[in-house]
């Protein structure tokens, strides 16, 4: 029984870290993997999703619907941003980083000015379950399920639907796709919107577990970037295993040495992975498969 409780505790830690990495990196990975744009305003889309979720949930909407609302609003904001700014910068990837950083500064500080330094959040729902002599949050178990569902949903979207085929064709050979009558600008716009909506979803899902401050997006930044870097350009092949490996490292180090070493471990892992596998895990897996 003692052993089972310890095993469950370890699995819970791992699952929690895994869910956080997958959910927070999905939006960034879609935008980067599909469009080659590093979106430094990723954290601000997360913040946007979280704020909308909290506001609508406190207005009386059930939490799942409120979370969807958050994702939707973030997605719409993302599409507007793509049309206004990102569209002009596709051939200048470094400049698009800087532009999105500018957006991020404006958004963080703008929210601080308009809504103040903190906002009332929503409590964590569902309570807890006791395993052994410790209690675990049921909501975090739901988040783990959400992470798996998110991966499955993205796979279905990009490999089983017409939009997915068109989007992947646009990424692989933009000229060819255009010659075949695909409106590539619209595809880019939708993909960016999807990435922003995924970020908003992450914000909504984690809104009940966090304090609502304008800089809350920054807490997601390091983890999501690290996962994308380790995963490499192809998110479907790379992101899930990358998240699993990083979650194992992080859960292990956090359990033994504390939070800080968990984070430092992540950084060291990234540097080592980059040194050994410059293309990330996805390039490695693809090469091995061939």
């Amino acid at each position, binding site marked *: 029984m003692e052993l089972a409780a310890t095993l469950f505790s370890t699995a819970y830690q791992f699952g929690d870290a895994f869910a956080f990495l997958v959910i927070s990196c999905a939006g960034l990975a879609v935008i980067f993997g599909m469009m080659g744009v590093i979106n430094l305003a990723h954290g601000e889309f997360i913040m946007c999703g979280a704020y909308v979720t909290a506001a609508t949930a406190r207005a009386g909407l059930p939490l799942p619907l409120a979370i969807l609302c958050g994702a939707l609003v973030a997605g719409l904001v993302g599409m507007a941003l793509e049309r206004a700014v990102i569209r002009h910068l596709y051939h200048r990837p470094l400049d698009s980083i*800087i532009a999105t950083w500018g957006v991020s500064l404006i958004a963080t*500080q703008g929210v601080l000015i308009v809504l103040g330094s903190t906002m009332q959040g929503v409590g964590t729902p569902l309570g807890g379950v006791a395993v052994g002599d410790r209690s675990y949050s049921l909501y975090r178990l739901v988040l783990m399920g959400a992470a798996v569902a998110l991966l499955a949903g993205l796979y279905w979207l990009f490999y089983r639907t017409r939009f997915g085929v068109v989007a992947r064709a646009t990424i692989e050979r933009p000229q060819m796709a255009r010659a075949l009558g695909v409106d590539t600008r619209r595809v880019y716009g939708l993909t960016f919107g999807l990435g922003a909506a995924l970020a908003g979803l992450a914000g909504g899902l984690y809104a009940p577990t966090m304090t609502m401050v304008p800089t809350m997006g920054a807490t997601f930044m390091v983890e999501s970037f690290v996962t994308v870097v380790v995963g490499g350009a192809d998110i479907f092949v790379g992101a899930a295993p990358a998240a699993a490996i990083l979650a194992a490292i992080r859960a292990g180090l956090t359990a033994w040495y504390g939070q800080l070493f968990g984070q430092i471990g992540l950084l060291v892992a990234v540097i080592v992975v980059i040194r050994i596998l410059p293309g990330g895990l996805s390039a490695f897996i693809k090469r091995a498969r061939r």
Partner: protein
Amino acid sequence: MNDARTFAPEAAPRDRRSGLAVWLRRLEGPQTMGRGSLFWLAAGLALLAAAAYPQFSDDYTVGNAAYFLVWTFMAMGLGVVWGYGGALSFGQTAFFGLAGYAYGVLTINVGAAYGFTWLALILSVALGGAFALLIGYFMFFGRIRGVFIGIVTLSVTLVLETFMAQTAGPQWRIGEARLNGFNGMSGMPPLTLPWPGGDLVLYPGAQLYYALLAMVALCYLGLRMLLNAPFGNVLVAIRENPERAEMLGYDVRVYQMLAFGLGGALAGLSGALYTAWGQYITPSSMGLTSAALPIVWVAVGGRRDITATLLGTLLVLTAFQQLTIYGSQYALVAMGALLLFTVLLAPDGVVYTAMERLGRLGRPGRRAGR
């Protein structure tokens, strides 16, 4: 974007004169704007004006101007790494903070006697440079490119910030120096010159201003020479086309790593000087907002020319201090907007574009005016 001045043929003839003369000739060259007596006259006048400035101002304002000068080293370093080397680093603040803390730890432990503060300054800069070389080794020998460099460097500086922020409590000490977590270190001595008849302590004011002005001028001229030397030419060749540079027989990785190390050392110089200037350093100097600042200065000024970087940095710093006086909370919004508009409307940088126009005006006979 192939610059005409990138491979200007007039830079090629080999100079057979002594080493010093060769380096002095490199003050002008294909990689830096501005040549001829008119440019140097203007530069000399600017330096004179800067030197005369403390005579017409009070000590507080001069100390404030010294504060601006502190930052220019980091900006010029980023200009070399990003503008000339083509590697966008978001993490210059990591080296800034590391060197700043190193200066604090060293001087708190040893004190300021016998001009030790200057040795501490050099050691801190060396530490910043060495750390940058290490990160650069992993990045460039790992063949990381483009946007990934930005991500890795940003992660480095954010992790350093997190680490320093949790060093509260008496167990986090190096010798006498307590790291003090989120509140940061304070109480280190400022730069001190051993002087006959009592040490000369460089508090923010005219004396520190002159010391910094001299360092900025030396650093600027030194970088001009380095950038027009073969090292700078190769660096620009790599930025324009890494494959071509490699085919010509240059080890791209080594050049990029060295440039990154130089950028880190210059950021470290800013960091150590910052600590000496205000006698404090906090972890937030490595945070996300601080990391954005050098990018803003260099992007707005113009990253492809060291003169534009220097002028742009001073310009943006001054403008933002004015803005902060009237409404500090809007300063960051304005900064983000400035960044956005620079990228969209003047991608080469505002000062750079203005200087280029001015150069064309001065030489109507030549089309490009470079």
